[in-house]
C-alpha cells in the first residue's frame, strides 16, 4: 500500500531525510522509531503529501503522492504531530467537516461521525468547542478525524502522545485491531508500544534507516539477547567466573553482586546460541548450587540506544557490532 523509495528531503544544507526506502503492506503495523529530530515527522509529512520530497518518491495505493495527489490522499488518514484541530469548531462540527471533505454526505456522514465518536470515546464532548478540550480529548478528536473515512492507509505521528495510561491502552488496541485490515505507519518514542502494537519496526537516525525488522529481530541485536543471569551459592565469585570463562560457549561474565548467601552473575554468550549457554552452565555447575538461572530476551531500549548513540556505549562494543550489522543491511538494500 505504501511504497517509499530513496526518499530524501533537504532543508537548506541540512539533510533531514536521506535516502529512506521501505514498504508497508495491508495488514502491517509499522512502528517508526528514532530520537527527536531524526526525520520521522518529515518522512510522514512527505508520505501524506504535505511537503514535497527533494529526492525519491512515495506511492500510496499505487498513486504517486506528488504527481497524482488527490487519489493518493483519499486513501490516507493522517494524524499530524500535536494533533491540530480547528479551535473555533465544536467536536461534532469538526468531524462533520472532515467527513464532508472526504466526500461523505447525508446518512453516510452521520454514520461515519457516530462510528468514530464511539471508537474514540468522544460522546461527552461532542458539542464542546475544540478550544476548551483537554489535551487527551483534543488528541482523540484529531485521531477520530483521521479514521473517519475508514482509510486503507493510516499515518499516525505519535498517536498516544499526551494520553493517560488507560487511553494509551485503548488507542493501542484500536491501532492493532485496525492494523489487521489496513496499512499503518506510526511513530513513537515509547518502546513498549512497539511490542504492544507493531508487526515491524524501523529505527531511523539522522535521516537514515538504521534498523528494520520485527520487534523480536531487533531485540536479537541487543547484547543482552541470550545472556544468562544466574545466582549460585557454595563457591566464591572469582572461582565461578574462572570456571565459566573456560566454557566454549561463554564470551565473558560479570559478577553483579556477591553476598554471603550467594553470587549473582551475568554471562554473555559468544554468539547467540539459543539456550545452549544455559545448558552448558548447568552442566558445569559442580560443587555449587544454582539458585536461579534464566536467559534474557534482549531489551529494545538498549538496542535503540546502541543503534542511535553508538559512541556513548563504551563498555562492550556491542553497539559497534550492531552498527556494523545495520550498515551491512542498508548496503544490501541499496
Amino acid at each position, binding site marked *: 500500500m505504501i511504497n517509499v523509495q530513496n526518499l530524501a*528531503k533537504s*532543508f537548506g544544507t541540512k539533510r533531514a531525510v536521506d535516502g529512506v526506502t521501505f514498504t508497508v503492506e495491508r495488514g502491517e503495523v509499522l512502528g517508526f522509531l528514532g530520537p527527536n529530530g531524526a526525520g520521522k515527522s518529515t518522512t510522514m*509529512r512527505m508520505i*501524506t*503529501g*504535505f*511537503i*514535497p520530497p527533494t529526492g525519491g518518491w512515495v506511492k500510496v495505493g499505487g498513486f504517486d503522492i506528488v504527481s497524482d*495527489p*488527490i*487519489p493518493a*490522499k*483519499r486513501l*490516507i488518514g*493522517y494524524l*499530524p504531530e*500535536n494533533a*491540530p*484541530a*480547528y*479551535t*473555533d*469548531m465544536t467536536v461534532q*462540527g469538526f468531524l462533520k*467537516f*472532515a467527513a*464532508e*471533505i*472526504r*466526500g461523505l454526505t447525508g446518512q453516510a456522514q452521520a454514520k461515519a461521525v457516530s462510528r468514530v465518536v464511539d471508537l474514540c470515546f468522544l460522546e461527552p464532548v461532542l458539542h464542546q*468547542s475544540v478550544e476548551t478540550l483537554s489535551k487527551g480529548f483534543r488528541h482523540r478528536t*484529531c485521531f477520530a*478525524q483521521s479514521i473517519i473515512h475508514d482509510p486503507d492507509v493510516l499515518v499516525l505521528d505519535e498517536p498516544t502522545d499526551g494520553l493517560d495510561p488507560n487511553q494509551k491502552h485503548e488507542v493501542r488496541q484500536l491501532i492493532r485491531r485496525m492494523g489487521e485490515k489496513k496499512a499503518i505507519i506510526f511513530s513513537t518514542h515509547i518502546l513498549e508500544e512497539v511490542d504492544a502494537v507493531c508487526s515491524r519496526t524501523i529505527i531511523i537516525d539522522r535521516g537514515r534507516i538504521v534498523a528494520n525488522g520485527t520487534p523480536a529481530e531487533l531485540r536479537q541485536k541487543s547484547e543482552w539477547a541470550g545472556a544468562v543471569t544466574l545466582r549460585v551459592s557454595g563457591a566464591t565469585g572469582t572461582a565461578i567466573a574462572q570456571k565459566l570463562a573456560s566454557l566454549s560457549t561463554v564470551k565473558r561474565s560479570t559478577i553483579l553482586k556477591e553476598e554471603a548467601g550467594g553470587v549473582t552473575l551475568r554471562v554473555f554468550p559468544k554468539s547467540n546460541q539459543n539456550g545452549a549457554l544455559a545448558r552448558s552452565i548447568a552442566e558445569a555447575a559442580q560443587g555449587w548450587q544454582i539458585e536461579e538461572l534464566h536467559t534474557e530476551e534482549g531489551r529494545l531500549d538498549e538496542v535503540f540506544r546502541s543503534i542511535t548513540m553508538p559512541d556513548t556505549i563504551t563498555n562492550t562494543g556491542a553497539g559497534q557490532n550492531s552498527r556494523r550489522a545495520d550498515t551491512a543491511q542498508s548496503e544490501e538494500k541499496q
Partner: protein
Amino acid sequence: MNAWANIKTITKRELGAYFSSPLAYVFIVIFLLLCGFFTFMVGGFFERGEASLVRPFFDWHPWFYLFLVPAVGMRLWAEERRVGTLELLLTMPITSWQAIVGKFLASWLFLALALVLTFPVVLTVNYLGSPDNGVIFTGYIGSWLMAGAYLAISCMTSAMTRTQVVSFILSLIICLFLILCGFPPVINLVETWAGPRLVELVTSFSVITHFDGFQKGVLDSRDVIFFLSIIGFSLFCNSVIIRGHRAG
C-alpha cells in the same frame, strides 16, 4: 463538480468560523456605524439636498475597507499556520487552489453580507427623494469588487506569516498604496514633477480611479477587469507562497 463540492465545504467551514466568534458581529456593527456616521454627519447627506449616494456614502468605502478588510482576511491562513491545521487541510484530498478559493469566497460573502446590511441608507434616500437606483446598484457592485481586491491582498499577506497582526499591517500598507496613487492630493503632488503619462500610469493602479466609474453608474469592463485581475493575481501569489512553505 467535485471541485465545487470541496470549495463549498471549505467556504461553509470558514463562514462558520466567522460567526462562531464575536469578531464577525463586531466587524459588522463597526462597519454599519462608520457608514451611518460618515454618510449623515461627515458626508453631509442632508445638507447636499440631492437624492444620491455617490459622494456621501460610496466615497468613504475605499477608506473603510482599508482598515476593515485586512481585519477580516488576516486570520485566513495565519491562524491555520499558527495552530497547525494547515497540515491537516493540505493533506486532505483537495487541491490548494480549492482551499484558497474556498477561503476567499467565504470572506467575500461575509463582506457582501456587511454591505447588504447597509440597505437602510438606500431606503432612506428612496424615502426622501427619487434617486437613480441603477447608479446605486452599480455603486454596490463596485464597492463589493473593491472589497474583493483588498481581501485577496489580505489573503496573500495572511499566508506570508503566522502572526495576524503582521498580516494586517502588511495588507494595510499595500491597500493604502492602491488608494493613495489615485487620491487627488497625492496626484497633485506627482503632477508637479512628473509628466502627464506617468501620472496617468500611477492613477491607473488606483482603486479610487476604478471605483469612480461604478459610483457614476458606469459599468466599464476595464474597471471590472482591474479588480478581478487584482483578485486573480493576489490569489495566485497566495498559492505560490503556500507552495513555498511546503517546500520548506
